[in-house]
């Protein structure tokens, strides 16, 4: 039995027996492969061992316990209750099914998980975005469309008339959040873009983006300073 091996290690004296070395590239060698002699004759022994492993898992998962999403979030394992489960847990203590049944069960996402975008609001409910065009400029997927308009609030210069993000094109890089100078766009909603039946439905309009905060129980306002004097910019001297 011989086979070709390519590795970057220097040939060692203790390694596999080298049968031939390539003249073109000395790293390509033909080595002698030593396999257990039973395996050369029949695969029965290996099959038996393999079946033992898979059967163990099958039995454990069919009759055994299931790790709940709470335990998964806390890094705990279920406690075996029945005698059979106890016996199984001796054979294989962990390795429970860790599948999360998504819509019903949700794992806790890390704090910096980038979820669906949301547009923040000012204290009086106006959209925080000042249509500075930083985010559509930085967006590598070119999926943000903003049409600015003059704001009728004298304290504010511009606001977006149209603010759309095509969630199908978004690569969830988070650069728009980084670029925003006034904390108007965030991706901390801890949720995913909703499945849609038509591509057009995946385009989040300004209203939808504002509604994301409420839908996911997030505070739509920000404590970040806006206009240089904090949230109460109207009381500017």
């Amino acid at each position, binding site marked *: 039995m011989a086979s070709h091996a390519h590795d970057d290690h220097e040939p060692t004296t203790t390694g596999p027996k080298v049968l031939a070395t390539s003249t073109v590239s000395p790293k390509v060698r033909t080595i002698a492969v030593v396999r257990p002699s039973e395996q050369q004759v029949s695969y029965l022994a290996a099959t038996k061992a393999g079946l033992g*492993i898979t*059967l163990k898992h*099958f039995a454990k998962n069919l009759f055994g316990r299931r790790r709940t999403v709470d335990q998964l979030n806390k890094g705990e394992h279920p406690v075996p209750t029945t005698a059979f489960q106890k016996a199984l847990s001796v054979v294989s203590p962990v390795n429970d*099914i*860790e599948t999360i049944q998504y819509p019903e069960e949700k794992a806790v996402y890390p704090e910096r998980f980038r979820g669906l975008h949301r547009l923040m609001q000012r204290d009086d409910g106006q959209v925080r975005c000042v249509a500075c065009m930083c985010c559509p400029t930085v967006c590598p997927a070119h999926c943000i469309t903003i049409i600015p308009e003059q704001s009728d609030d004298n304290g504010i210069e511009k606001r977006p008339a149209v603010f759309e993000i095509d969630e199908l094109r978004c690569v969830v890089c988070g650069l728009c959040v980084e670029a925003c100078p006034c904390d108007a766009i965030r991706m901390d909603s801890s949720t995913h873009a909703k499945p849609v039946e038509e591509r057009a439905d995946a385009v989040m309009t300004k209203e939808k983006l504002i509604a994301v905060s409420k839908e996911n129980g997030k505070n739509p306002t920000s404590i970040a300073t806006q206009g240089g004097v904090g949230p109460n910019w109207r009381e500017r001297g």
Partner: protein
Amino acid sequence: MDWLSNNIYAILDNPALKWLLLIMVMVMPLASLLTWAERRQSAMMQDRLGPNRANIGPIKLKGILHFVADAVKMISKEDFIPGSVHRGLFALAPILAIAPVLIAFAIIPFGPTIYPHSYTSTLDVLGLATDPAAKPFADSIRLQVASFDYGLLFYFAVLSIANYGGVVAGWASYNKWALLGGLRSSSQMMSYEVAMGLSLMGCFLLVGSLEPGFIVANGASSQMSGANPLNWLWLWQFPALILFMTAAIAETKRAPFDIPEGEPEIIGYFVEYSGMRWGLFFLAEFIEIVFISAVIATVFFGGWQVPFLDADGFRVGGYVTEINHQWVSTGGWVLKLPHAAVTALQLGAFGLKVILLAWFQLMIRWTLPRFRADQLMNLGWKVLLPCALGWTMLTALFKLCAIYLGWL
């Protein structure tokens, strides 16, 4: 109506009807359920959950309905036919793959012979043995579509037609990968068919018949009842069981013998197929699993026999036999059961055996990785074939000695 009630048993005994019932009631549901069971079982073996969500409203049934969803999907999918294919052969190939397997079910005895007139009472075994033409035994229905003398040879012959399914699909697709898959499948089938046929020769020698119904009724020796598990061939022909199972799994073209498919390499002979045409290839594989389970159950595990259940009830320690042209029952512990209950138990036993064996095949399929082509050929020609030949000769020698010593 009169005509119908007079001829109802003759109609029920019609082979075509029995075949249709067998396919529709047992084979098709089992094969389609296997498509779901395979995914669930493999998930269980790999610490996953598997498909468990398909539902009709609140009815979820642990995801069993996935096979319905699959069927709906495949039927409603676009039936795409590439422009360069040979249309006739392209359409023929899936049928060639699935039809022989369905036909081969004709030889499987899936239940005992039913005597409708003694349905509510206990079957009179002695009376049946003495005078099979008597009134209570009239209109008997044999739960086997066709009992040929050449029995299992029919299976080998018909199933080798199924090989054309893969080859023709590969050829007609006008696609290099499909052609490679077709060639691989034909070479594999050809190698393993030899070993598969030969591995059962020992059983045929021992039983003295090729007819599966006969094998089930008598087991390894006619001295003991066919209902005795020690009389089933798995004990007497254990090496043959392993050889046959290996070759038979190779015949289904599934892992570890799935090089005709080889998803990461060539995708296989059905690479150009879509929708239900592909579904037929897929289903054919699962029907083959059911069929092979049925054959193994029939030949090695006593078919529809329930351990120690004779036609008239449970009987331990004795048997019904002929002594001096007189049929007698040699005592033992007997529990009489009505004929209907016996039949139901035996049908259930057959179903259970088939399901267990199908489960075992799925276990194998999700345990072993794929063989390399050269390993496959080595295993087929250098291991299975000589072993099958050797075992046949050993069995022949054993039988010769047994006859010489007067055991048989």
